[in-house]
């Protein structure tokens, strides 16, 4: 599945996605479901950690952990589900500097808004990926609102 990070196509994803029932790999960066992370985080200190959340999760319980996390992956169950946009904003507002990755129903026409909200990585399904997808980030070059990289709305710039 093509992975975009900071608008670049990358072929190596260091993150190992581990489901609830799976045994933990001995080494490598771990992407865990939120509940499992919260349950086992004490045993995992020192490892590269990420959590996988969806719109039903409480974003505040993730924000409480951001100093221990290097990745928050937000699952978008359907492209019309906009909760992830607010999640990304809240994570960046709280000062999270790690990767915020969109996974699930992720495709071209939301990438620009996602980036402005604070996403910097995107798992794009194979059938929705084309190299020119990169152009989506620059379709609208002006905006009124503040964004993750510059919180000032237009009237304060």
């Amino acid at each position, binding site marked *: 599945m093509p992975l975009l990070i900071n608008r670049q196509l990358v072929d190596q994803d260091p993150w190992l996605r581990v489901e609830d029932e799976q045994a933990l790999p001995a080494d490598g960066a771990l992407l865990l479901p939120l509940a499992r992370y919260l349950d086992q985080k004490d045993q995992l200190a020192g490892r590269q950690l990420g959590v996988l959340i969806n*719109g039903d999760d409480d*974003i505040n319980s993730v924000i409480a952990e951001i100093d221990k996390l290097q990745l928050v992956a937000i699952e978008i169950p359907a*492209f*019309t*589900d*906009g*909760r992830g*946009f*607010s*999640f990304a*904003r809240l994570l960046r*507002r709280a000062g999270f500097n790690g990767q915020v990755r969109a996974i699930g129903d992720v*495709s071209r*026409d*939301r990438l*620009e*808004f*996602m980036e*402005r*909200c604070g996403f910097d990585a995107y798992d794009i399904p194979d059938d929705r990926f*084309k190299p020119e997808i990169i152009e989506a980030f620059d*379709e*609208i*070059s*002006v*905006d*009124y*609102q*503040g*964004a993750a990289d510059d*919180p*000032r*709305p*237009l*009237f*304060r710039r």
Partner: protein
Amino acid sequence: MYQYTEVDQKLVDERVAQYRDQTRRFLAGELPDEEFRALRLMNGLYIQRLAPMLRVAIPYGLMSSRQLRKLAHIARTYDKGYGHFTTRTNIQYNWPTLESVPDILAELAEVQMHAIQTSGNCIRNTTTDPYAGVNANELEDPRPYCEIIRQWSTLNPEFAYLPRKFKIAVTGGPDDRAASQVHDIGLHLVKNDAGEIGFEVLVGGGLGRTPVIGKQISPFVAKHDLLTYLEAILRVYNLHGRRDNKYKARIKILVGALGVDKFREMVEQEWAQIRDSELKLTDAEIERIKGHFTPFDYDAGAVDNDLDAKLAADEDFRTWYERNTVNHKVAGYRIVVVSLKPYLKPAGDISDGQMDLVADLADRYSGGEIRATHDQNLVLADVKQGDLYALWQVLADNNLARPNIGTLTDMIVCPGFDYCSLANARTLNIADQINEKFEQVDYLHDIGNIRVNMSGCINACGHHHVGHIGILGVDKKGEDWYQLTLGGSSEADASLGKVLGKAVPADEVANTLEKLLLTYIELRDSEQESFLETVRRVGLDPFKESVYAPAH
């Protein structure tokens, strides 16, 4: 009025190019139907029963003569020579082709217009009082705040995929001509005890399947806090609004489920995080936007005119003057309502020629600006009293001066089954039936102010719940029937109408209205008591009896 900066212009130009590419990718099969559907809706394009329908934004109902001429041009070039004004003060075209929409948008961008967020599950066109800036009752002109909201909400990256559509209305004072209490957010300019101007904020109003009057979430939000407060509400809604059932997804359902106190607590908690953020409005920004809405340079000499003589000499003119013009805050001026409710034509429809004509009249008599109203009429807001007679003559010659504003035939009517794929029943034929029935009735003017609203389905685009008389089309085994409600209002005394009883067949709607009106005339305690007041005083029973009792 507001004039685009380079940024505003670039945004709409780039949005046109973006939409053109989305259309191209859809036609090339690269964009799934469902995804293109969401994208085209966010740009105002529906696929209707017969053809696509394009809804063009008229921010807070205000347009220039140049813009109206462009709307006429689009009607002529891409449609069948007419457009339809809606209760959100937008204009709809019923016959463009899907392929031509990018070209239409490019034409709109030439005159600082667009179709951004006129549909879809995002923040829609903010509406306000069509008499903003020219009525003596308002605390302040609400339009600068509408423009501030327009900019904040336009292509807002966080709130483009809300659980459901989101509508905001702003009023400038105690009068409510924007139906603010049946909006997702209603904002009322108010003054606090310290004499500062701010907003009373209502949340969770709406019509549709679950009609609700909005509840107060804050009695006073300072104007600098407008955007931070709105953002807090939208964020709580975006995170917590239901997404499992589109009929339960509006903010009114969330507010109802949590209770307004709990909802307020969540909003205030979020607001505390952002109240003093960069989003807080600055004096400079408020003043910059206000600078676009400075009052016209009114002519003090306008009070010297021959209006009284003309009124005395011409009864038709006097009837129109009394019905279709309104007090202006400046002596010597009058607000003119251009009726888009002529005899036997769809409510809110206007031809390309009429649009050009109104644009010319606006240039000649009203500072080159036109407003669209929630009631689907147009307004020329700044007409000298001495020009009224000449203006009336031209309007009358062009079927734009039916003296019916605020009366029975000034109905709000959705397009219904004839156009809309959501509708269950026709509405335009019923509107015609009502017009035919009452056109020659001599007690019609005796009835005075009455609001009749009609919708062709429970989505309630015709706002039937808040009509003094509401008419809802329903489908019963393939036949159109009509359910009536009484006692609704969308004004400052907002209320939801109560169901009169079982639905009546299509050919009985006007006859039923007649029974209701005759009952009102019989029961009112004086000619000053309006239909709505009588219904509120006596209740529905006498009206039920007049409609459903067996004939004597």
